[in-house]
């Protein structure tokens, strides 16, 4: 299959999905933009990323792209202070430094949709050159997105998506699909018997779809599951998982869909020496303790969703959208589903970097 065929197939598949939704001026504009973007934009993004760093540094962005304008992009977020997004902010900073742009990190600390809509509208009123936002609500962001697009401000979604929104593209992990993949992994680790699924705060838009995805795979299978809430504070999550284990010592696996609970699962496995009993464990994201315990064999896997790319790529796309005068730049990107195990987690332990939120310094250093 040639590259063109692949792109055409992708466009057809996306438009088939769109056909299920009523056509609006925004959706038509999006379809056109997507055709342009997938036809050339994806290549442009890849080519840009692969360009040697030295060359990019030697030439200023104006000599490469023919525009010296200092674009200002606004990133609205649902949990602005959550350490998960530290690498995302580093990604935005790096792209901005590379391209001579500036950015604002704003939104809500507590997934408060009204606060996010206010931040979104403020960005539109402030004539931002581009807006990126995790779409954690199915409807609330439709009106601001339409308003921004009508004003010529490109809007992208990152980290969480809602396809019926008029945004130009989504950059991030598909949370539900990642949950399904986790469910498959759980089924292969524990083909039959009971497993626990832990979630810090049920109903949170950035973690609930994962558990829904896992449930959709496990439902009706020989792997029986229970879903348990663990709480917002890490020590509390640890206590809850320890309690749960006391009451369910026949369980064959403990799994979690958020970073804190995943760390607590591995700590519980270590404390009660559950690997000796054959208990499986896994989850999401990489806290320093999660990495260490996984490398020490106290768990089976953790899933990395590359938060750095969720900041770097939207900035790059928004810049290219302007630099190419809307001819290119916009493309859906799946930042992936990286299953890490005892062996593949090792480089994460031996290094510190902006890419994993373990350092604010430039580059990768040995720890």
């Amino acid at each position, binding site marked *: 299959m040639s590259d063109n065929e692949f792109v055409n197939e992708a466009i057809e598949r996306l438009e088939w999905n769109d056909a299920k939704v009523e056509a609006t001026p925004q959706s038509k504009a999006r379809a056109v933009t997507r055709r342009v973007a997938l036809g050339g934009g994806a290549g442009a993004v890849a080519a840009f990323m692969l360009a040697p760093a030295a060359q990019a540094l030697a030439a200023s962005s104006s000599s490469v792209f023919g525009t010296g304008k200092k674009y200002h992009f606004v990133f609205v977020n649902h*949990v602005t*202070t*959550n*350490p998960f*997004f*530290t690498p995302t*902010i580093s990604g935005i900073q790096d792209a901005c430094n590379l391209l001579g742009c500036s950015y604002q990190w704003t939104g809500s*600390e*507590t997934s408060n949709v009204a606060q996010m809509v206010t931040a979104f509208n403020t960005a539109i009123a402030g004539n931002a050159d581009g807006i990126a936002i995790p779409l954690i609500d199915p409807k609330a962001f439709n009106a601001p997105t339409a308003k921004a697009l009508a004003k010529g401000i490109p809007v992208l979604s990152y980290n969480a998506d809602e396809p019926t929104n008029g945004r130009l593209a989504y950059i991030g992990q598909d949370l539900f699909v990642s949950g399904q993949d986790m469910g498959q992994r759980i089924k292969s680790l524990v083909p039959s018997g009971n497993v*626990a699924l832990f*979630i810090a705060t*049920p*109903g949170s838009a950035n973690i609930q779809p994962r*558990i829904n995805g896992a449930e959709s795979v496990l439902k009706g299978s020989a792997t029986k599951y*229970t*879903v*348990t*809430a663990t*709480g*917002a*504070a*890490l*020590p*509390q999550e*640890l*206590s*809850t*998982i*320890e*309690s*749960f284990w*006391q*009451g*369910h*010592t026949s369980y064959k696996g403990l799994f979690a869909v958020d970073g*804190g609970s995943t*760390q*607590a699962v591995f*700590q519980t496995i*270590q*404390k009660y*020496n559950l*690997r*000796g009993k054959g208990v499986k464990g896994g989850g999401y994201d990489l*806290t*320093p*303790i999660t990495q260490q315990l996984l490398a*020490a064999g*106290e768990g089976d896997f953790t899933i990395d969703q590359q938060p750095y790319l969720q900041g770097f790529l939207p900035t790059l796309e928004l810049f290219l959208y302007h630099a190419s005068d809307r001819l290119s730049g916009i493309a859906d990107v799946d930042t992936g589903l990286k299953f890490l195990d005892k062996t593949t987690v090792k480089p994460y332990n031996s290094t510190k970097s902006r890419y994993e*939120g*373990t*350092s*604010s310094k430039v580059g990768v250093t040995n720890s």
Partner: protein
Amino acid sequence: MIHSDPDAAAPARGEEQPRSAPRAVLSPWTLIKRFLTMREGSISVVTIALIVYFSLSIPAFFTSSNFQTLLTYFTWLAILAGGEVFLMINGEIDLSIGGVYLFAPLLFYEIVGGGISLVPAVILTILVCTGIGVVNGVVTAILGVNSFITTLGTLFALEGLTLIVSHAEQLNMPGSAVSTSANGSSHLGTFASIFGAGVYSELVWAVVIIAIMQIALTRTRWGLHTIAVGSNRIAAAEAGVKVRLVVIRNFMVCSSLAGLVGIMEAVRSQSISPDPSSSNSVLLDAIAAAVIGGTLLAGGSGTIVGAFIGALFLGVLQDGLAIKGVNADYLDFYLGIAILFAMLINVYVGRVRRRTGVG
């Protein structure tokens, strides 16, 4: 108010018991009545009922292994709530304990990073937390800003400072490393065993601190002045109580304890997490434990032992629901209903207490 003597009714039944008979001959019913009408009595009964319920319905609940897990739910909370009680009796509130809880382990990390050894670093950290209490106290008592607003300000400022200093990165807590031996068992260092990670470490801290504070509240001039300031500030000032000093001192104690708890909980979880959502839930739990234990939000009255039992109640409830494996979506619902139910019993018994004039 007329204080009736609840003991008086007991000996009246038999002529053979002279008035000077030792208290040991009180009938069991009188003892139960006296216990129930104590400020901490009603919540104790509710907590015991809850323990009995969970013990009967979940075999794994009443075990030594779960007892050890249960400790991690409430011991640290009791310490936080104990500090808060002193301020609440004053008619003040300290919301910044959440911020101090979050900031203290990070400060400890930075001090240890500066080359100071672990125990002196703990002392230095707690001293800084005491200083935060001084700021809260001075702004509230001398500059006259409402304590809710003062401590809301310091809460946000400390949460922000934690994010700035940590670059919003999660860090490993110094001195908390757990090593695993060849046979799979895990081992703690001495520092970690004493400061939070040892099985009974937080319990020992909590019992000692609660005992000292209960004695301070009921047996010392400081406690007397604290209650006097909360009951009637003007009258206390006219009687010669240094009102401002009492308030500032209570803020200092509250912040210092929050700092200690912050360090111990970070040692236990091996991590310094800069996420403010955790500090906010901890803060709410501490105030809830104090109020459930019988301390009035309006001030003038409170009990440290009650705060300990209030924390135990919340701990038993959370541990019991977790060990039962309650579905995630139902957890908060059960938690909320149970707290409401407990408080209704509390209020009812409180009414009986007022009628008998005891407590």
